[in-house]
């Protein structure tokens, strides 16, 4: 399975959010790292079909994703950054709603919902209104819905934001345990969250790929002190941008 982005550009008025972005994602876990304004969210929106690029092409196994439409959407799972979920639904109702939208079979959906609720540790509050959930609980609920529909490509936008250290480790492991045979893209600012699970780190800078490689190789390639690890790489690549 290959999700290939070739020369993707996205223009918002005079601002170019993505500038000739090219990269091929294959099966594995990818960490998408970059400072604010690097174009991560725009890239995710384009991959999830929410926004069309100004130029370039995205193909999944050689077929244009914008021509595949439903066939493509069937294969993606997305966890957005924002936490505004219908406050009047219970956690279970929300998963039911998302599962049905993802084309899950109604008969098996209940079991799947139960399974993922247990996985994200929300079973005790599954029948309470989402409006009563804490930020961390909403985050875990959004993670649970990403797995519904058994997607091949999963995109997580800041999955660990607002979670306590124990939950972060739990979520990190959950993503890793479900990564076999899938493309998983995790966009984040928190380097530690992906350092241990990512097969490849894509550093995005000013709408382009700045660097992309396995974490240990990046450390070696950038000549960073191994004790600093990926954080050192991040600092080195984005120092100039941060200072700007």
């Amino acid at each position, binding site marked *: 399975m290959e999700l290939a982005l070739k020369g993707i550009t996205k223009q918002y008025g005079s601002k170019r959010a993505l500038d000739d972005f090219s990269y091929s994602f294959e099966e594995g876990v990818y960490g998408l790292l970059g400072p604010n304004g690097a174009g991560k969210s725009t890239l995710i*929106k384009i991959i*999830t*079909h*929410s926004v069309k690029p100004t130029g370039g092409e995205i193909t999944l196994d050689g077929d244009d994703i914008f021509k595949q439409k*439903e066939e493509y*959407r*069937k294969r*993606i*799972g*997305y966890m*957005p950054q*924002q936490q*505004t*979920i*219908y*406050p*009047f*639904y219970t956690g*279970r*109702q929300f998963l*039911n*709603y*998302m599962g*049905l*939208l*993802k*084309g899950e079979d*109604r008969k098996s959906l209940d079991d799947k919902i139960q399974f993922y609720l247990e996985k994200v540790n929300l079973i005790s509050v599954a*029948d309470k*209104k989402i*409006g*009563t959930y804490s930020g961390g609980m909403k985050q875990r609920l*959004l993670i649970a*819905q990403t797995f519904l*529909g058994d997607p091949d490509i999963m995109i997580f936008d800041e999955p660990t934001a607002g979670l306590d250290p124990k939950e972060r480790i739990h979520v990190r492991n959950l993503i890793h345990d479900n990564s076999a045979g899938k493309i998983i893209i995790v966009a984040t600012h928190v380097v530690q969250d992906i350092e241990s699970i990512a097969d490849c780190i894509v550093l995005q800078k000013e709408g382009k790929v700045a660097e992309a490689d396995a974490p240990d190789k990046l450390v070696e390639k950038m000549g960073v002190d191994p004790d600093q690890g990926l954080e050192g790489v991040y600092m080195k690549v984005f120092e100039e941008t941060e200072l700007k």
Partner: protein
Amino acid sequence: MVCLVNELRNMLHNRKIWMAFLILLFLNGVFYVLYINADTLDHSTYRDMCNRINTGELEIGDILMEAQESGEAQDIIDEYMAVADYDIYLEKVQTEADNNRDISIFQSRYSINNIEKTKQAYAKLKGVQPEFFGSRGICRFFGYYGMIIVVVIFAAVLSIEGVMRDKKNGLLNLYKTTRKGDSRLVIGKYLASAIILLLMWACVYVSDIFITEIMYGAVDKSLPVQSLADYIDFGYRMNIYQFMLADFLCKYIGLLAVLSLIMLMNMISANEAMAFVKCIIIVALAGAASGVAKLAGNELGYRVFGGSIFNSERFFGYLNYNIFNNAVSAIMVDIIIFVVIIVVGICISCVYFMNKEIYYNQIMIGSRLKARLFGGYRIRGLGALESYKLWIGYKMIFVLLLLVFIIGYMYYGKTMKWGISEIYYRYYVNQIAGDVTEEKMDYLESEKENFDKLRLEYEEVIQKYDAGEISYDKYNRANDSIQEQLNKEPGFDRCREYVEYVVEKNKDNDGAELGFVYDRGYDLLIGDKSVESRRLNAIMFLTFGFIILSFMYLSDYKDKINELVMTTEKYRTLDSIKTIKSVAVLVFAYVAIYGTEFLWITKNIDLEGSGYSIYSLYSMRETAFNVTILQYLIIVQLVRILIFALLSVLFVFIGKKVKNTFYMLGGALLIVVLPLVFMYVSGM
């Protein structure tokens, strides 16, 4: 001051407040127009009569003749007479005061004090010269409770946005840690809400006066307030303008007391629902106490518990309370009570804010009961979940219930007004209803001869009376009997004119099959008389339709949850579900609005003769195409549904492009609904 400015700025930038402001202002207008239309008298007839009297076109003596059959004329005469006899009324007050002073039961200190005060107050009114101008409209305005209710609802919105929102997002606890996070913050919140409430109150007040003057005619506000029929016994010297100002300010103080209580409830409650329940309990208790006091004849109790705040006539009626055997002006005491409520409410809010833990808990009232009742039931299926989202989640069920309530309010007890002329017109048309035949023409001719005979008979009676051949009693009896018969003549004349039109139209018809059809019911549905209700119905339909559609289609954009939903395989299915639901909602609203109107008309008038040509209805004589009345009715419904459907599709289409519920509803209001409201109110 800093707290006030900061709170004011927060509220002015709060879209929910402005949305509530516009919707409530609009609803107030709709309810007020409905209230005026529910008047037992016809406002346009009343206005025309008053205008003619005020311009000298009509003498008051002229309408004495009409008074028997016209409620409007009777009302005008009563008002005219009351104003004309004002000096006599003032003298009567003085005489009664003098008489009462000598009666033993009025010998207490309070009674003597009260009598003296009353006497002096009315003595000061000597020289006041009220004038007749037709004050029914403005009196109805002062007696209208609805606008207070609208502003109280707005006060609740302000408190929820000012207090509960900050509680919800934890800002209230944060503010407590700041240098000015004490009672100044609570007072700042209260004053900011009070300022916006004043704006709302002013808009509601002025717009209702504006509607009143359009419906009932302009009011000369420089006249003494005693010129108003319901305020002829008002005990103070002021003009209508000053009275309006006093009414506005007194009610505003009452509203500030309500605002203070609502803010207190928001401060001490864990969530909006709890605050709402507590407010309801307080209102219910106050209402019950007020009612009991009224039943017990205790005016002080009635007013203290808020019974007078909504009622200008009662609030400004001349009354002195017995306070420790002293007669004290009721208005003054009422205002002091309101001020005390305001101060106490704010003080408790401040104390609570500074000394108690502020927390927000969204657990709904009755959640345990709901869990017990519905715990085993799970909403499944996309359609059911979508319905739950719209009706329960976004609470659109209340919008729908509001629509049903408004329709119920409009038609419950609404009676069809029948003038003498209309009653006999209906009678004669029903006599000849159906095909045009010679027998019917003969019948009309014989009736005409009967009327001619009656007139001759009447002249004979007058001649005999003038010649002294019959007594006054006999003359009166004969006169009454003949007049009763002649009352039918205006209706008969209208019927003859209609018959002439049908016969003439039949001569040059091009295949149209005309018949005699009583037209009032059809006119109310599709003809001249339906213009006003057509606009009102369209306003209601579009307002409710747009509100529900905006939540159905556009709320996902507001919450940005569409970004998640759009990545799913079957999100297009949602469009199909929403389309089906939109059709169902619009059909329901259509049937509720137009169906109820249809039922109300058919309850009062039989819609017969629908198989005849549309030209059989005089008001439809200019119709471009010749179809039967029934076909025309169906075409009108279809065209109307098509226009509504197109407007709804356009609204949703533009809404999806704009992706903002607030701008969308505001835009729709400006483009479609407001012009309709303007047309309705101005009678265009």
